[in-house]
C-alpha cells in the first residue's frame, strides 16, 4: 500500500521523510494539488455500490483504495497552475481530490477537518487551558477600551496576528511584538487584535509531536531580546530537552482532543522553568530542528505514515518511556 504526500516540489523538508520511506521500501506517490488538472490527473468511479479511484502524477498511477496514509504537508492550492486557472476550477479540483481522498479510509496526517479546526489560534488557547497547559493571559478584541483596560492589568504585553497569517498586499511580516507602554489602542477597532501578557522567557521550546512520540527542543534566549524567535538574531543552538511528564500528559490530551497526528508546539520557558503554551501549528516546520538537534523527526513521520492503524506504545523524548 502507498503513502500519498501532498506538497510542493520545492519542499525539501518532505524529502527528509521520503528518504526514510524509500529506505524502508514503502511505496510513495508525491504530488502537488496545484498541478491538478495538468501534471496531476484523477479519476473515480462510483458504480454498483462500490468505488474505484486513481491518481496519476509524474508517470505514477496509484489506486485511491490502495493508500495506507495521506500526509498533507504543504499542498498548493488546487488548480493554481492550471492552463486556465480560476476560483471555480480551484473549487472543482479541491472537491474532486479531497472528496475522493476523504472516502478512502487511509490514515491522515492531519485530517483536513482536524487541520482546519486546529489552525484557529483562539481555539488552541482554549483547548490548551482545558488540558491544563499554562496559557499567558490573553485578550482578543475589537473594543479599544477593553484593550486599554487589559493593558492596565498587564502592562507588559505583546501583540500578534490572530490567524498567524501575514498580509500580502503588499507582503509584510507581523512578528509577535512588544506593545509600547503608552500605546494608543484606538486602532483595535479596525481589526480583531490579540494581546498577550509577555512571558520573560529564558528559552524557547519547540515540541514536535508525531503520533505518540514527543520530541522537545530548547533554545536559550535573552529575556529582553526579540520576542519572536523567528526574527531573533541568536547563535544559541536548538538542543534536545526532556519534557516534564505532566506537560507530556497535557500535550497528549491536547493532540487527542484535537485529533492531530502531528503538531509543532511552541512554548516559552520562564525563569521558574514553566512552559507557557503559545501555539500549536498543525503543520509546523521540523527540518530546522532535526538538522540542529539530530532528533529523528522525519524518521518518526515516515514510520507513522508507513504503519497500519494499530496502537503503538507511547514514547516521549525519543526514548521508550511509557506515559500513561
Amino acid at each position, binding site marked *: 500500500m502507498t503513502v500519498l504526500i501532498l506538497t510542493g516540489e520545492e519542499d525539501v523538508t518532505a524529502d527528509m521523510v521520503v528518504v526514510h520511506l524509500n529506505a524502508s521500501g514503502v511505496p510513495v506517490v508525491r504530488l502537488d494539488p496545484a498541478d491538478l488538472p495538468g501534471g496531476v490527473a484523477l479519476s473515480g468511479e462510483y458504480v454498483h455500490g462500490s468505488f474505484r479511484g486513481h491518481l496519476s502524477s509524474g508517470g505514477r498511477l496509484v489506486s485511491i483504495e490502495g493508500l495506507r496514509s495521506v500526509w498533507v504537508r504543504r499542498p498548493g492550492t488546487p488548480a493554481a497552475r492550471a492552463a486556465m486557472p480560476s476560483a471555480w476550477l480551484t473549487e472543482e479540483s479541491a472537491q474532486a481530490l479531497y472528496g475522493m481522498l476523504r472516502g478512502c479510509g487511509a490514515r491522515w496526517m492531519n485530517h483536513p477537518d482536524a487541520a482546519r479546526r486546529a489552525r484557529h489560534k483562539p481555539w488552541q488557547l482554549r483547548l490548551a487551558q482545558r488540558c491544563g497547559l499554562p496559557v499567558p493571559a490573553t485578550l482578543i478584541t475589537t473594543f479599544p477600551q477593553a484593550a486599554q483596560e487589559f493593558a492596565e492589568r498587564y502592562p507588559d504585553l505583546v501583540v500578534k496576528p490572530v490567524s498567524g497569517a501575514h498580509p500580502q498586499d503588499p507582503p509584510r511580516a507581523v512578528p509577535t511584538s512588544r506593545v509600547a507602554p503608552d500605546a494608543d489602542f484606538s486602532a483595535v477597532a479596525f481589526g480583531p487584535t490579540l494581546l498577550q501578557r509577555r512571558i520573560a522567557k529564558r528559552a524557547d521550546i519547540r515540541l514536535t509531536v508525531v503520533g505518540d512520540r514527543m520530541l522537545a527542543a530548547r533554545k536559550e534566549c535573552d529575556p529582553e531580546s526579540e520576542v519572536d524567535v523567528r526574527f531573533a538574531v541568536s547563535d544559541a543552538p536548538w538542543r534536545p530537552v526532556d519534557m516534564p511528564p505532566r506537560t507530556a500528559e497535557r500535550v497528549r490530551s491536547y493532540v487527542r482532543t484535537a485529533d492531530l497526528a502531528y503538531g509543532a508546539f511552541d512554548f516559552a520557558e520562564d525563569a521558574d522553568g514553566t512552559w507557557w503554551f503559545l501555539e500549536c501549528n498543525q503543520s*509546523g516546520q521540523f527540518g530546522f530542528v532535526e538538522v540542529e538537534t539530530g532528533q529523528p523527526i522525519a524518521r518518526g513521520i515516515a514510520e507513522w505514515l508507513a504503519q497500519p492503524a494499530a496502537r503503538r506504545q507511547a514514547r516521549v523524548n525519543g526514548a521508550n518511556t511509557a506515559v500513561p
Partner: protein
Amino acid sequence: MQPFALNYARPAAESEATAAYVYDSGLQLNVLLDGRIAACDHSLIRELGTTTSTAGSKTHFDD
C-alpha cells in the same frame, strides 16, 4: 483605519538564497547538481534555511 497589529508590521524578507537543487520527478526528491539527494546534506540545508519557520510565508501560516 489600519488595524492595531499592523502598526508592528515589517517588510517581508525576501529570500536571497538560490536553490542549489532541483526536483527530480523520478526520485520524487530534490537533488543537487552533482546528483546527491539534497535532504541528506544537512549542512547545506542549514545554510539555505529552507526548512526553517518562515514568518511571512505567502502560502502557509503553520510554521
